[in-house]
């Protein structure tokens, strides 16, 4: 039957979330002729609705439902109810992301093997290898139009990049360029090219940056096989006596509770909401939540080792002009324990507008040390550190004991503390960032603390053995055959790279697997 689908139609695949994982999986399945319903908690804002205003856009797109935080990370103090800066809108965080599309390195899929046992870390090898994922990376890069792949030219460098590049040259870094970006450097896939507008984080008003909102989703809808239901907040996944999932209880746009029947359920609500949903779906049969016989649901929360470095120069930079992530240095992404830590990190340009710079440069800071920095806003260049953080069992999403959302379900608490390795890596990166900008003449440099997490990973991790994780190498839960996880929460470890390309590649691969298993009637 054609979309829209009946609530009682139990032949559909129900996907929760429409971002990089859910939106891609939905389209891939629809292209194969499989009926899909995507439940999206947020509203549908098309790209012409986006706004070039940081706080207004935050109000439009950000996931601001209350969460709590704990642990020693500074976010818990500065933004106690905003652990993550992610999106609640059709397209999910692909509306907000910067567009950096990097493949994981071979060794990052085998972190335990290459790094060895690290005290306090719950490292594990992925159950898949780079070689297995490479064909899917290639498909994802083509789908997303990633620059410097498929013959697509790189983007031109903006001022912020030029400062980064000059510093990289001075420090002797070899691999510095304008990135592998899912932002059109020329018209492609019926989308126009980048106009260097800035405001990538606020949603690209040109549609030049890939987002499921205006690529995967409309393509899937065109097949008649995909229905996206906005303003539909999943509350609980239901199952039958045999333990197979049978549908998803959700609240619709009118606030009414509905039950959408399903043949298969795929969870793609990002690494806080996905484990929360599984935990909130507890039942007599699954008292610890769905897919949680290992006790691993919600654990090993990773957020990348991040931080920023801003430098002030004697003359103007205007870093906010042009793409937000305008260039990258990859030299430090290697695994080289001689630096005092395992794993590596990327350095990528970043800029914030004045309002967000005031909020994030030194949260809680005040006085002339703070304001004299902002006074030099025009003369500022900035970079962001993205490094592999250590998975730790107790860095985890749990259900809050007392606080509930407006539907009466426990909200999520995000507990995170840095591992010693994370701190050593961040300190190294701060030093390199400082040296880089000083080499170009910076008169003042700021090591800026991590923002609320944008890369939320690992809370339903893939594992070879059922006791070590939540899903297998296809994102299929170890416990329940027709329950899948399709977002970054599947990541066994985080790698040094921005996660979206890997999420999309895994979703394409998962769609192949689901289609095959459906045809074989094993699910």
């Amino acid at each position: 039957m054609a979309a829209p689908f009946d609530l009682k139609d139990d032949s559909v695949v129900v996907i929760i979330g429409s971002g990089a994982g859910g939106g891609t999986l939905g389209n891939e399945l629809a292209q194969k002729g499989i009926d899909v319903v995507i439940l999206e908690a947020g509203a549908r804002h098309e790209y012409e609705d986006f706004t070039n205003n940081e706080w207004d856009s935050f109000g439009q797109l950000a996931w601001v439902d209350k969460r709590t935080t704990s642990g020693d990370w500074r976010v818990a103090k500065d933004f106690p109810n905003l652990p993550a800066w992610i999106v609640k809108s059709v397209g999910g965080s692909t509306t907000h992301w910067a567009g950096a599309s990097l493949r994981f390195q071979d060794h990052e899929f085998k972190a335990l093997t290459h790094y060895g046992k690290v005290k306090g870390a719950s490292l594990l090898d992925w159950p898949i290898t780079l070689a297995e994922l490479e064909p899917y990376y290639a498909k994802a890069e083509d789908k997303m139009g990633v620059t410097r792949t498929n013959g697509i030219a790189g983007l031109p460098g903006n001022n912020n990049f030029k400062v980064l590049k000059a510093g990289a040259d001075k420090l002797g870094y070899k691999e510095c360029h304008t990135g592998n970006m899912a932002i059109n450097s020329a018209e492609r896939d019926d989308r126009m090219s980048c106009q260097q507008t800035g405001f990538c984080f606020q949603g690209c008003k040109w549609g030049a940056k890939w987002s499921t909102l205006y690529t995967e989703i409309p393509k899937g809808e065109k097949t008649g096989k995909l229905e996206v239901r906005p303003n539909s907040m999943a509350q609980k996944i239901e199952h039958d006596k045999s333990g197979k999932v049978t549908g998803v209880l959700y609240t619709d746009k009118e606030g009414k509770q509905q039950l959408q029947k399903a043949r298969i359920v795929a969870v793609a609500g990002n690494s806080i909401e996905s484990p929360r949903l599984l935990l909130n779906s507890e039942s007599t049969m699954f008292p610890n939540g769905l897919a949680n016989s290992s006790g691993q649901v919600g654990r090993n929360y990773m957020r990348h080792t991040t931080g920023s470095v801003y430098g002030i120069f004697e003359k103007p930079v205007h870093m906010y002009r042009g793409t937000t992530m305008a260039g990258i240095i990859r030299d430090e992404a290697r695994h080289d324990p001689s630096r005092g830590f395992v794993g590596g990190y990327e350095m990528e340009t970043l800029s914030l507008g004045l309002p967000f710079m005031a909020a994030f440069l030194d949260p809680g800071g005040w006085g002339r040390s703070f304001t004299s920095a902002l006074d030099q806003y025009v003369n500022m260049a900035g970079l962001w550190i993205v490094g592999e953080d250590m998975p730790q069992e107790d860095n985890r999403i749990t259900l809050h004991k007392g606080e509930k959302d407006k539907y009466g379900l426990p909200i999520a608490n995000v507990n995170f503390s840095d591992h010693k390795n994370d701190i050593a890596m961040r300190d190294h990166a701060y030093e390199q960032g400082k040296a880089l900008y000083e080499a170009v003449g910076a008169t003042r440099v700021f090591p800026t603390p991590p923002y609320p997490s944008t890369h939320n990973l690992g809370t339903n991790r893939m594992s070879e053995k059922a006791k070590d994780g939540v899903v297998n190498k296809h994102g299929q839960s170890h416990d329940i055959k027709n329950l899948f996880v399709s977002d970054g929460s599947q990541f066994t470890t985080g790698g040094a790279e921005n996660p979206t390309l890997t999420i999309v590649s895994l979703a394409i691969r998962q769609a192949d697997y689901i289609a095959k298993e459906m045809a074989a009637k094993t699910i």
Partner: protein
Amino acid sequence: MVTIFNRNAAAPDTPEPIEKQGLSRRDLLKGGTISLGAILVISGSSIIHPEFAWGLETSNLKPETMATLIQLARDIYPHDHIPDRFYAIAVKPYDAKAGEDPKTKKMIEDGIADLDKRAGKGGYIGLGWEDDRLAILRKVEDTPFFQTVRGGLVTGLYNQEEIWPLFGYEGESYSKGGYIARGFGDIEWL
């Protein structure tokens, strides 16, 4: 409802007797108005900036409380090239909030009274050097009062579009076609 308004002169409306406002010992008298640091003038329920022709009326907070709040805002986020009116706009919502919520009103009035008490004779606003005021602020920086005012300023001050050009931030660019032809890569000093 309080409004920020432009006015051409600091012509005082019939002010309440100064004694009644409890301000007389603290500030310089100027023909029925009170000058604060010779910049802001309180007149009745208004705070007026005579030189730059703007004023602000209060209806729930004491006008002198609002005047001190403006100074406090500047001391927390001092930008010497940013005129007072932007700080006034940033703290103005506390007057409306004070009308809706007695707890807010008490927190603000008590917080300002505490600053004045710590400052001694002449009050907080009477301390001529920023360093002397900062010495007080460092003692109260962990209080809910200070943190509320500071936190509110992050958006209240820096999210005023009119202030952005003063920092060289150009804001919205989509309607101008982005920066592709407007200097996204125009750096020359490298």
